[in-house]
Each structure stands twice: as C-alpha cells, then as structure tokens.
C-alpha cells in the first residue's frame, strides 16, 4: 500500500516538475511546482520524516514560492509574450545531461544496494531535536548568522537609490 502510494506520489512529483520547467508562464510554473512540492512533502512523510515534510510545505511551498510569485509580479514577467521560451535546440544539451546524470546515478546506485533495514521506524521529533541542538549546535548558529546576512544583503540590494 505504502509502496503504491510512493510510486503514485513520485509520478505526481515528476509530472509536476516537468510541467513546471516547460511552462509557458512563470506563474504557472510556480503553481505546478507547488503541486510537485506537496507531493514531495508526502514522500518525505512516507519516508518517516514528518517534520521535514511539514517544513517542506511551510517553507517551500508556502514561503519561498510565494516570494517567487511576488517577484514575478513585481517585474511583470507574467505575460507570456515577454518570456523568451527556450528553443528546442536549447533543450538538447539539457536532455543529454539529464540522460547522463540519471543513467550514471542508476548505475552507481544499483552497484551497491544496501540491504533494507531490518526494522524501519520513523524518527521522532524528539530524537530529531536532540540531535539538532546537541550535535549540530554550531551549525544552527552558523545558519542563523547566514540568514541574518541574507536579510541584510537583501535589504541592501533592495533599497532605492
């Protein structure tokens, strides 16, 4: 049951993403992408990461995509005639790259498949938080600093002259 669900969700994710990257309008692309991220969040949940799934929905599908939408609207890029769509010839290198990457990863991953875990259990929020703040305290601090810098940088870039 879970497996079928996983494959379904995977299909949704992939189709959503595909639609997103081939979309005619940036806004549509964002909407497709949000769909795809929702499916991805569910996959996270399936993989025993409810917290990450929640954050995926909140931060990605919620905050970041909305940010994108704002910018798109601000720059008035929503009109299709303004978007220079990539020509087919520009897709070819991208396709080749895709094939190489997928093929290589498939081969590499197939080469050493670890045995499935004996007893799968999700990771509890408690376990997660303990690891985060005990082992990776410094990283948390660094990330917070980085967010601060990003904030300052964005403010600096966005001010009017």
């Amino acid at each position, binding site marked *: 049951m879970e497996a079928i669900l996983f494959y379904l969700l995977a299909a949704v994710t992939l189709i959503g993403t595909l639609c997103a990257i081939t979309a005619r309008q940036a806004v549509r692309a964002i909407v497709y*992408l949000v769909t795809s991220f929702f499916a991805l969040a569910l996959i996270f949940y399936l993989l025993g990461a409810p917290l990450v799934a929640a954050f995926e929905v909140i931060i990605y599908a919620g905050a970041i995509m909305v940010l994108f939408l704002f910018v798109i609207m601000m*720059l008035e890029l929503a009109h299709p005639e303004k978007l220079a769509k990539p020509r087919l010839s520009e*897709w070819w*290198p991208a396709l080749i790259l*895709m094939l190489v990457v997928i093929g290589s990863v498939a081969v590499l991953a197939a080469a050493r498949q670890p045995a*499935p875990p004996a007893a799968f259990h999700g990771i509890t929020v408690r376990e997660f938080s303990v690891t985060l703040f005990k082992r990776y305290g410094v990283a948390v601090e660094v990330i917070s600093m*980085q*967010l601060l810098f990003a904030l300052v*940088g964005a403010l600096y870039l966005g001010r009017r002259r």
Partner: protein
Amino acid sequence: MTVPLYHVLILAATLFSLGLACVVAWRANVIMMLIGIEIMLNAVMLTFVGGSAQWGIADGQLFALMLMALTSAEVSLALAMVVYLHRRKRSVNTDDFDSMNG
C-alpha cells in the same frame, strides 16, 4: 518503509536532472533558473531523507532542514539581486549580464 532506497535515489536523480535541465535550458530567464535550482535542492533533500530512512539516523533529515534554511537565505538574496539587476538593465536574460567577460 517498503520502498528500496534504490528507487528513492532514482527518483531523486530524475528530479535533480530535471532541475538541471531547467537551469541549462532557461538561459533567458533568471527566475526560471532559480526555480531549477530549487528543484535540484529538493532532489538533494530527498536523497538526505531517503538515507536517513534507510539507516534510521536523524542526521539526514537534519541536513534537509539545514538545506531548507540555506535555500531560503539563497533565494531571498538571489531574488533581491534579480530585482536589482532588472532595475538596472530592464532584463532578466542572463546573457545580458556578461560584464565578467574576460
């Protein structure tokens, strides 16, 4: 968890390469390029989470979280820059910004 890690990885790889294709192909639009980057980052997160599930360790999920934080920082800056550049050149085409030409 009944899905083998292999399949998760294949999904992640496909997702990643879609993002890559987006970045490579959409040279005319910075926004789409950034979207491609987001897709790739999500693929990476999927890999992390998959690994975490495979071995039952929290670290993978943790890195996914950190990635998210990182991404938000990146996106905020990048979009600010897009706005800034658009204001200067009235364009989002990356090929217009070639002042790094050697």
